[in-house]
């Protein structure tokens, strides 16, 4: 895939004319024809269809932007990026002005400077709230604009009381529309990038606002909690629900045994919150930080990711056996992965009659929760009611997942709090801990042992790769035939990928698979999930056996709880960090995890998909459909 190609391009439902680079086609498909553009006396040549903004960026001329986002289709609504184009009566939005013929551009002429000043003033006028009481303080594009343009007074006044009530109904995403500047990034994220369509602008003129269906609380609409809107909001209008206060209270309570599991993606991204470049893995420093904060044990979600592979992989093999040997026509194949809680809520809302296809295996977070309050508690003689189980996740949907009513198979709420990478960084900073300069330390035993296969869960295609490493070996008795275990066909950032793996020989138990070709598919971002599900509904995926779906673009490393900003480059850097760390680990196949072997030997004695596994590690789903919530009271 063209690395510069925005993620939304293939999936966008935006009007054709507003899709990035679609204008290329509009110009009669004059691909790669070069045109001259002069920006502030600097002459350069760019491919026809390049926007003024892109052209300026390529020669390090900075044009301020607000509504523009690399992942999203064009909007051209904030007008902050206006520039002067010679011969045009009006200023042009550089983000959405494609260059097709030779033009001269001035990016800071007097009228441009005046216009930008005025526009920033207008944006600030109705932006309620103060910077120092905001979760996005120092990481806010509006604040940065005000700073760059030296705004030191509100020329046209400033709103002094909130207009809207905060919506804190959702377990995952909080909306404070008083801070909204109507850049429509969340709308474009929700409608075009993710194709969920929960948020849209309603009303006109000064009454315009971003709303849900019938202005219902977020909890009562089909929001999947992916949090991608949070990652793209330029201000603090959208944020994740932060449980830090409750976690502090637990840590401060000597009665409580507070444990934390950390998912693979935060360790590859949390450094960004401390000024490190994207793609810097800080696993062992993070461990030290978490211990210093006061967590009693620092564990690794990778342990249960390995467990997930054992359960989900076995489930797949059992389904295949049922279908191929027992000729059971009702077996739901292909099997769909179930690790991504955003994806789970998506399928529950939009394809409620297809839930059978989902693996029943819980996500690694929830498996961990169930194991921590059972096996771990018994083994170390801790009363599970005193265990406070916290997870560090790249994800806002995990917050909803741990609150699901069915997630209490340990007899307690399996996971008590899900913290995002951003929120964790906040806790670390609150303690004055300088993460980049900490000494390194290991995870604690016994739930701190994970393999490289589990680590790569963080990137799109990772679950599939981990599963193949294990399933292939179980079936054939041999390691996957890929150099350094790099299963390249399932890696990458393309929206939907497919791969085939011939099984040339098989061990006795799986003899029926000999000669079969394992067909798999990987999709990330729910817009691609939608494409996959539509194919499934049309019966076009009959030959496929296993499909990995992640709700977020890029997989978990692009999750809704990860550091802001996000873009394709950043996500790629994080993924690279994860793959690199995998290759440095001694154990890289889930079935080789010694603690996984141990737990099957001494606790989950019937093995993967056995009786106790089923009770603790598997779950069921809720067909939610699109009509939820209470009916609006007639007033």
């Amino acid at each position, binding site marked *: 895939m063209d690395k510069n190609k925005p993620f939304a391009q293939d999936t966008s439902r935006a*009007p*054709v*004319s*507003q899709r990035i680079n*679609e*204008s290329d086609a*509009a*110009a*009669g498909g004059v691909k790669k024809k070069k045109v001259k553009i002069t920006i502030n006396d600097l002459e350069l040549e760019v491919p026809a269809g390049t926007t003024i903004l892109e052209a300026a960026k390529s020669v390090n001329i900075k044009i301020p932007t607000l509504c523009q986002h690399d992942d999203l289709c*064009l*909007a*051209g*609504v*904030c*007008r*902050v990026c*206006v520039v002067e184009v010679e011969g045009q*009566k*009006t*200023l042009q*939005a550089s983000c*959405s*002005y*494609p260059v*097709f013929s030779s033009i001269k551009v001035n990016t800071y002429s007097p*009228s441009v400077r*005046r*216009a930008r000043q*005025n*526009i920033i003033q*207008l*944006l600030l*006028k*109705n932006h309620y709230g103060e910077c120092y009481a905001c979760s996005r303080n120092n990481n806010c594009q509006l604040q940065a604009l005000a700073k760059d343009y030296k705004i030191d007074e509100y*020329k*046209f*006044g400033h709103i002094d009381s909130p207009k809207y009530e905060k919506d804190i109904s959702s377990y995952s995403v909080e909306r404070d529309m008083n801070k909204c*500047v*109507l850049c*429509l990034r969340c709308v474009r994220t929700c409608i075009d990038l993710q194709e969920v369509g929960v948020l*849209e*602008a309603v*009303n*006109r*003129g*000064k*009454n*315009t606002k971003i709303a849900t269906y019938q202005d219902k609380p977020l909890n009562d609409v089909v929001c999947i909690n992916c949090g991608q809107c949070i990652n793209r909001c330029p201000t603090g209008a959208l944020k994740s629900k932060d449980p830090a206060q409750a976690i502090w209270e637990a840590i401060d309570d000597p009665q409580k045994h507070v444990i934390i599991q950390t998912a693979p993606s935060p360790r590859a991204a949390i450094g960004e919150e401390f000024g490190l470049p994207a793609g810097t893995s800080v696993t062992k420093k993070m461990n030290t930080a978490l211990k210093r904060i006061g967590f009693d044990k620092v564990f690794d979600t990778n342990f249960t990711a390995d467990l997930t592979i054992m359960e989900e992989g076995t489930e797949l093999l059992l389904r295949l056996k049922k279908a191929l040997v027992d000729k059971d026509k009702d077996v739901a194949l292909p099997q769909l992965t179930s690790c991504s809680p955003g994806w789970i809520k998506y399928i529950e809302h939009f394809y409620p009659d297809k839930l059978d296809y989902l693996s029943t295996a819980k996500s690694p977070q929830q498996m961990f929760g169930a194991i921590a309050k059972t096996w771990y508690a018994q083994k170390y003689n801790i009363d599970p009611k005193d265990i406070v189980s916290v997870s560090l996740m790249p994800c806002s949907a995990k917050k909803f997942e741990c609150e699901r009513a069915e997630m209490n198979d340990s007899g307690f709420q399996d996971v008590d709090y899900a913290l995002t990478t951003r929120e964790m960084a906040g806790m670390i900073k609150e303690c004055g801990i300088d993460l980049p300069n900490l000494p390194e330390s290991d995870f604690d035993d016994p739930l701190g042992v994970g393999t490289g296969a589990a680590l790569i869960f963080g990137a799109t295609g990772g679950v599939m790769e981990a599963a193949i490493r294990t399933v292939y070996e179980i079936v054939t008795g041999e390691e996957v035939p890929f150099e350094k275990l790099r299963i390249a066909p399932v890696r990458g950032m393309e929206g939907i990928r497919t791969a085939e793996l011939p099984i040339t020989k098989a061990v006795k138990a799986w003899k029926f698979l000999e000669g079969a070709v394992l067909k798999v598919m990987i999709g990330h971002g729910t817009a691609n999930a939608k494409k996959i599900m539509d194919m499934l509904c049309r019966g076009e995926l009959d030959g496929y056996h296993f499909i990995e779906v992640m709700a977020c673009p890029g997989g978990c490393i692009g999750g809704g709880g990860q550091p802001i900003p996000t873009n394709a480059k950043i996500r790629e850097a994080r993924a690279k960090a994860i793959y690199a760390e995998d290759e440095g680990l001694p154990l890289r196949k889930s079935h080789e995890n010694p603690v996984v072997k141990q737990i099957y030997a001494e606790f989950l004695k019937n093995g993967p998909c056995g009786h106790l596994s089923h009770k603790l590690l598997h779950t069921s789903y809720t067909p939610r459909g699109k009509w939820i919530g209470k009916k609006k009271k007639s007033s």
Partner: protein
Amino acid sequence: MTNNKTQRKGPVVFSDIESLSGLKKALELGSDKVVDIIKESKFRGRGGAGFPTGLKWGLAAAENEQEKYVVCNADEGEPGTFKDRVLLTEYPKLLFEGMIIAAFAIGAEKGYLYLRAEYKSFLAELENELAQMRKDNLLGNNILGKEGFNFDIEILLGAGAYICGEETALIESMEGNRGEPRNRPPFPVNTGFNGHPTIVNNVETFAAAVHIISKGAEWFKSIGTKDSTGSKLLSISGDCLKPGVYEVPFGTSIKEILKMVEAKDTKAVQVGGASGTCVPKKQFNRLIAYEDLSTGGSVIIFSNKRNMLEVAKNFLEFFEEESCGQCTPCREGLPVLLEAVDALERGQCSKEYLKDVVNLTETMQIAAKCGLGQSCPNAFVSIINNFKEEYSLAKINKKEKR
């Protein structure tokens, strides 16, 4: 029955014409020639922006695509404009003939009439007309025996938003989206309805085009001024004895118009609707023409009894509600202008603050996303500039600007 209050005589649209003479001539001439004649006549769009129609049709005709669309913009929403209503109710066949000619010229097989929701009562009559035209082989396949020329027209209703009169917002609305102007370029002539080449023209444009094809470019150029050929339908309202729809040749002065409609004690004339210019008495020699006072047809007359700040306020309130709300200058700027009018009315607006606000109007005029946003401060600006005697500035110390 709609009472149109029309003076039914005029140089172009209201002149006599043999039914279907335009279409028959067009079919005879061939599509290239039709575009040429329109180009040669220097005909410009009658919706208000004045884009050269021949150029628009030529660009669409040059697009090498199977699917193209002709759209008639009947979302007549500019305050004080009601001339399209006359054409829709009394000359629907002329209008549809114009659309058929346009379709022939650019190679379109489908046309849409985008009718504003408030004109819903015309729908049945217009549908009847289309049905009759289908019977008469004026719509359908091989129109009037012209092998391979297939075209039909469908009527779509708006939902009551002023902004949908802007052509790209209109297209968005047609596609079922929220009516918001698009980024331009690309323009509708290459990426219009559902991504296909589309021409959007005003009702009057289609009606006048029939006359041009029928009677020739030279005839058309003999009417009006050098740069503004032909005539303009005006909807004249306000403080006068004979309001109504008039057709005047371009180059007619405000003074002549006032005389025609018997207006007395006129203080100001708003030309071009809420987004147009407010012309003070001393400028009544100015002309209706693209090079002077460009207008979509709205002329509103204000007598000496009117308070111009109130006029400005009225227009701004209209826009504040009708702005689509997507771009910052228009959405956030209009409330500021209204606050300024308020402060002026209370005598609490300082010179400095007014200067900031006028500076803001310039930003709105050059930085807003669409024509509406760019023109919405016009009336305010001309009233502030031309009617200084109607407000006094507060002498407040510079720090507290208001």
